[in-house]
């Protein structure tokens, strides 16, 4: 087990290094440069600014300085907001995105497992058809449409009841989080429902289920202890990529619901071409996602020994 964990962690570190390098190369090839904006009109001013930001050094040296800073967890200063460190921005806005993401993934995973198990029990009967129709719909409708529709519905509901049942936008209290988390988790939930359904159907007729039946266990016990436990395994495997999808899908939801998360900040930084913020958030997000995937893999290896032995 420990060997497996160590191996996965080492892979993760190399992957993060790859992400950091790709980001560095990409940002160095952006047309224009960080100083082409307003202040550097004069040659001398330009040279001074370049020296201040270390842009006059050879590119390889810049790369190693960049890697060194990343290792120390120092992402530098923002180019567009004076005296604001990228670390501050991440520290301030990432918890918001993370809260939203955790809520959404919890909702998606629980909902997906529940609905998937339910459809498999009612296979080819009305509840199955209805749920699978909704699932197909949820997979085919882009998240921003759900965000917009959810907001629209909320506006009408609030108007109908004359009071604010849930706030339409913003961030702060638990009531602010409910609708965005639902909207964000919906697509993933639909995907997990499909997966859970097919994996349940596969487990349905497995030998060990037949044995359990022959032993005389109640259908309820077979369902919870034999079928559900085995069918959940594939769902756990895709949780890693699902977390990645939900985190980046958060950009749209943060935009529509005016939530001060890191995703919205990243989009804004890209639009303003704020080099350090773009690089910092990309590497930070990348590292976060890579280690989330690894975490899921390790948990999976712990649940299902076949994986780590392979």
């Amino acid at each position, binding site marked *: 087990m420990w060997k497996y964990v160590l191996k996965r962690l080492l892979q993760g570190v*190399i992957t993060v290094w790859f*992400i950091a390098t790709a980001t560095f190369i990409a940002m160095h090839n952006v047309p224009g440069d960080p100083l082409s904006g307003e202040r550097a009109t004069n040659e001398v001013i330009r040279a001074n600014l370049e020296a201040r930001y270390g842009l006059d050094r050879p590119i390889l040296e810049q790369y190693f300085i960049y890697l060194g800073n990343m290792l120390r967890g120092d992402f530098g200063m923002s180019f567009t907001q004076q005296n604001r460190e990228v670390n501050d921005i991440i520290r301030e806005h990432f918890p918001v995105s993370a809260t939203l993401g955790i809520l959404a993934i919890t909702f998606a995973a629980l909902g997906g497992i529940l609905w998937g198990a339910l459809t498999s029990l009612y296979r080819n009967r009305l509840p199955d058809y209805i749920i699978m129709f909704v699932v197909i719909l949820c997979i085919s409708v882009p*998240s*921003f449409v759900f965000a917009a529709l959810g907001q629209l519905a909320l506006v009408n509901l609030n108007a109908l009841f004359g009071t604010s049942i849930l706030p339409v936008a913003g961030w702060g209290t638990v009531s602010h989080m409910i609708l965005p988390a639902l909207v964000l988790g919906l697509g993933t939930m639909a995907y997990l429902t499909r997966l859970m359904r097919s994996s349940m159907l596969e487990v349905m007729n497995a030998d060990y289920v037949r044995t359990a039946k022959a032993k005389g266990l109640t259908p309820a016990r077979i369902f919870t202890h034999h079928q559900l436990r085995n069918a959940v395994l594939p769902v756990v495997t895709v949780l890693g990529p699902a977390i990645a999808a939900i985190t980046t899908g958060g950009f*749209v939801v943060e935009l529509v619901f005016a939530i001060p998360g890191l995703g919205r900040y990243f989009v804004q930084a890209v639009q303003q071409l704020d080099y350090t913020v773009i690089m910092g958030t990309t590497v930070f997000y990348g590292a976060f*996602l890579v280690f989330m995937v690894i975490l899921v893999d390790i948990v999976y290896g712990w649940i299902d020994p076949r994986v780590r032995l392979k």
Partner: protein
Amino acid sequence: MSIRPPIRTLRSADFEPLPQHSAAPLLVRPSRSYWQDAWIRLKANRRALISLYIVIAMLLFAVVGPLVWRVDPAAQDVDQISVGPGADRRAFVIGPWETWDGETVDAAFTAQQDENQGLRLAAAPVTQGVRLMWPEIPGAVTYRLYRSHFAAVDVTALGIPIADFAEGARRAYEDRLDLQARQYFYSVTGFDREGQRLEDFLTLEVEVQRVITLAEIASKQLPVDVESLQPGDLVMLAAHPLGTDYLGRDMLARLMAGARVSLFIGLLAPLLFVGFGVIYGATAGFIGGRVDQYMMRFADFVVALPFLLFMILFQVVFGIGPGESGIVPMMIALVLLSWPSTARLVRGQILQIREEAYISAARLLGGSHFYLIFRHMIPNTLGVILVTLTFAVPSAIFTEAFLSFIGMGVAPPTASWGSMSNEALKTMLTHPHELFFPALMISITVLAFNLLGDGLRDALDARMRGRD
């Protein structure tokens, strides 16, 4: 004594073929190729077949649509801004419009109004201008005029202030600010000498009628004979079957233009990255060994890149120059990031096929590597590749819509379904049709490709049959 049977001498007649019996019914199915078989299976799947028709209809909508509905998707119709589908498009013809002096009153019109009413109209309210006048409010020195879409019930919520009137100014105003053919509520409040707002206000509901001057008809090139028109005649403004957006652009034309962009990206990008993935994966799987390991390790790294983050990053790197639509950078970014999943899949397939007997046979017969890969291996993985391709289309369309929605996709004025949805978000509450149509197009297309992909997988991939 033994009885021996007489030795029968064989004659040549013994070697004649027997007469043809009426043979047992022939139980052989006509031989069908893999693709014929798959096609029959697909045709039996009603859901997949309908999806296929929808996909074809969408392609026709994008390709043939703009040839039939010849409206410039970038042209603005300022007379019809944000109108819904099937909106009233009649307009009365009037003569040249002159600025109001604040005194002249259309006697025939004002006679219909209540003399004692506070805020009054001086002429029929039309989209060219609404002429308002009001009596003195006791205690008021200066006045402020408001316009709103909602009835005024409280002095604190009268709408948008459109004009202020200094002490002694004429209590009359001609509103010409972006008037649409709809209902407006005008209100006027007074302020006393200290600048305190009075509690009293006058309000008036106005139903504005759409009019068009002869000069405008001529400049718009409406399909009518300008010479024969008289003031008071009715003309029809340009038709917009699905309404217009917030800049007065025709929705149908923009949906068609958007379909071209969205489907172009949605179809070409998957073709490119699946193609690259197939070559990459086939090469790795065929060569095998150390090369395969290194190639796949590299693919693993690319998979680990956070997809949307790097999509956005690459969009910036490949830059959208002035006058460009941003389609090419998006294609490059999509191809650079999406190929590994196909490569992995194809490699796995090739590794299996490599051990098959027919490959050994082909090798023994002296088939070159190129021949083995392109004649035997890739055709045998084609079913899987086709299914991957079908599922790659909706995800590419989603990615385009997502990026355009957050403002990192195609650059305006290029229309795509995603960018149209983005623009419509601001007016979602008042003009939902602007969001509804592009969102519907995305959803239907993605749904059709998803169901078609399911059907294709069932038809082509025997092992996956029956799964969801």
